[in-house]
């Protein structure tokens, strides 16, 4: 008989090992999935995990990895703060869209002025846009006790509609022959987030690194980070320790909203280039996987974001080269989170094999 037994102290080694085990199991199960689809599983796994980094055309794919990873890191770092405190912001996608809209709107409003001030102003507007969108579930939660999971998630769809309306209305390119979508920021150097497009470097990466370092110090060295962890572990003990739950909710949802907004702003003014109907690409949701895959730890999130970026880029590659359906890649990403959460049990429990009928 197999039984689970609670460990006296959570296993630190397993907590670090489970993401790796989860990745390994995902590769095996993914391989099986691909072979059922009639593809060579080894080739598929190699195409997804090996070719973009070390394959023949890696010089082309490596910058793409950074471009995909940057927004994931920014958003996931913000989410991890809330998740640690038991505050579940599921609507980062909406905050990401709002950041992009607000930031882009500032840039587009002054087009074609060329001054160094424009981009910093856009950054502030982007952060504020995401922050404001995050504050809606926060204020409703602290004032009326609503569930932030539902409210933040619903606001994603509101943001989606706003995005469509903006691309077709207010922010539409007046010289765009009536096509939906705003002016393209690639034609507007003062409001462009690229540092070096060929290397895949934009300001989002710089901010992502700053966010990782900031979050690391916050969580490990600062009393606010301790209070965040304490609230997640034992809310009553947190109250006893003098933590103000209202302020914590506002801080966590506000910060994660602002970071998601920044991610949106850097994306719209760089890789995406314009506000358009199809701008939202699911980074806000994928970042949830990244946050958990990275153990809600800043450095872990950095690595997890690179891994998820790899499945995106490698998945595209597999789609193109091997004809894998795009849904297969999404299943693959979903499996990763699934196995990770399942294996999480092992950090707190150990599996014991008991002889049946032992009296």
């Amino acid at each position, binding site marked *: 008989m197999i039984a689970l037994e609670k460990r006296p102290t959570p296993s630190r080694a397993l907590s670090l090992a489970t993401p790796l085990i989860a990745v390994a199991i995902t590769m095996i199960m993914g391989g099986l999935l691909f072979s059922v689809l009639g593809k060579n599983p080894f080739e598929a796994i190699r195409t997804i995990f090996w070719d973009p980094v070390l394959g023949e055309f890696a010089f082309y794919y490596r910058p793409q990895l950074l471009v995909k990873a940057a927004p994931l890191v920014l958003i996931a770092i913000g989410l991890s703060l809330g998740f640690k405190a038991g505050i579940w912001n599921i609507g980062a996608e909406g905050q990401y869209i709002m950041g992009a809209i607000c930031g882009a709107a500032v840039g587009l409003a002054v087009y074609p002025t060329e001054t160094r001030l424009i981009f910093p102003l856009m950054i502030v507007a982007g952060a504020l846009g995401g922050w404001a969108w995050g504050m809606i579930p926060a204020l409703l939660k602290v004032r009326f006790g609503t569930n932030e999971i539902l409210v933040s998630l619903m606001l994603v769809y509101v943001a989606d509609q706003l995005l469509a309306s903006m691309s077709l209305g207010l922010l539409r390119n007046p010289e765009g022959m009536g096509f939906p979508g705003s002016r393209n920021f690639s034609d507007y150097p003062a409001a462009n987030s690229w540092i070096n497009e060929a290397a895949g470097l934009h300001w989002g990466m710089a901010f992502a690194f700053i966010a990782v370092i900031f979050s690391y110090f916050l969580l490990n060295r600062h*009393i606010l980070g301790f209070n965040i962890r*304490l609230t997640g572990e034992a809310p009553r003990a947190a109250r006893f*320790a003098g933590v103000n739950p209202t302020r914590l909710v506002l801080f966590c949802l506000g910060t994660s909203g602002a970071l998601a907004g920044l991610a949106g702003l850097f994306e719209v003014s760089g890789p995406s280039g314009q506000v358009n109907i199809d701008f939202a690409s699911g980074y806000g949701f994928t970042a949830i996987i990244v946050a958990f895959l990275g153990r809600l730890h800043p450095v872990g999130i950095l690595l997890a974001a690179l891994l998820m970026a790899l499945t995106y880029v490698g998945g595209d590659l597999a789609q193109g080269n091997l004809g894998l359906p795009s849904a297969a890649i999404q299943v693959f990403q979903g499996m990763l989170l699934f196995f990770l959460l399942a294996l999480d049990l092992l950090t707190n429990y150990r599996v014991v094999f008991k002889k049946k009928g032992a*009296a």
Partner: protein
Amino acid sequence: MSTPLLSIKGLTKTYPGVVANDDVSFDIGTNEVHALLGENGAGKSTLVKMIYGLVKPDSGTMTWNGQHFAPAEPKAARASGVAMVFQHFSLFDALSVAENVALGMENPPAMRDLARRIRRVSETYGLPLDPNRTVGDLSAGERQRVEIIRCLLQDPKLLIMDEPTSVLTPQEVDILFQTLNKLKAEGTSILYISHKLEEIRTLCDHATILRLGKNVGECVPAQTSARDMAEMMVGDTLQTPTRTTEKAGEVVLDVSGLTLEPTNDYGTTLKNIHFTVRAGEILGIGGVAGNGQDELLAALSGESQTWPDSIKVNGQDVANLGPNARREMGILAAPEERLGHAAAPDLSLTENALLTGAIREGLTSNGFVNWSKTTDFADTIIKEFDVRTPGNHVAARALSGGNLQKFVIGREVLQRPEVLVVNQPTWGVDAAAAAAIRQSLIDLAAGGAAIVVISQDLDELMEISDRFGALNEGRMSDIRPAVGLSIDEIGLMMGGAHGMEVAHVGDEEQEGASA
């Protein structure tokens, strides 16, 4: 001697790293109240769980009325006639008494019949209870009655009671004992688990004493002194705390007109509470669980804020200050619930030291945590209060109850409080650790602190407090000097018998039996 009702031979049960029961043997006769005596962690609970079919023994046998007895599950044990009243009630707050009773039955009868049966049993045994009341509105004593009645409806041959008096006033204890004696007279045996020696001496015919999982002796309680039993239980001579009465100083803590609504549906409202505590004084606050103890602690610690001027410390109004602002002024507290309230279960002892120590120990500067200083503070607590742990990195939940309690109390005592409020400082703690904790509170008072000890352990309160008051349904009794207070007076301060009455049907028979 006739065949015993239940005979236990060589029962052994090991858990990883612990031998819970080691070759335990004893007999429970028919018509006997048998005490199972031992400290927390001595293996009493594991033993009765084996009898009740919740846990399977690794080795050893049980015989029930001469037949082999090995219940695979509680249902089988109940079918044989074993019933158990647990220390922690398994009742649903939102359901009525009758619904709760029905949930525990295999084939519950129609609600109306059940209600009638509940009424009949409750009248017969002097346990008045309205089957239609919602359990959430009942006092702890009344909830216990629900559990007892639930058991009595099964017509048990053996009733197991796990620490039943911890939630009762002395008067309620008397009435419970009369009920148990009546059950015994009618042919039900009782296995009575406790560590309260005087109770066992009054009630029980036989006692089996467990220490560290082993049967270390049997005795007839009425013929053995409480001290001898205690020493068998602890395996050592007992150190009782020494109290040197000092002249009390100025009033430090002044509570007047404290009124507080509870934060949850089934909490207790504090109603117009007044008391003062002087420097160097220990105020003991007794009362049955659930009469406002948690709320009083929350109001004093700053977790709940109250009307201006209802709590003053050294003349300064603190009623609106949060926990940390009060800590700055030297008002510290240790809540009852160790895991999840006083300490975070999954955080290390170092992190738990930071939890309340950050302010007074100066463990942060500009919000940044000084971890080496925090580690030193945790190590100091571990050393000074003899906390048995492999190190300061261990999660709080890995410690035994007694060790974690020493850590929690030590954490506050070492921060040199001016006012210290503790709730149930020695609940679930072994005798040696309890004595050490009480001594540390007494020493702290001798150093000039004003201390409030909220506890349900009356012996403890009588041992350490200078003055005594009791909480009853959110109201505070008059505060009286502890010296010379009789157990009857204390019982009345605690609210008397809470509407209990003595078992009355068949009184003549009982008198006939005892005559």
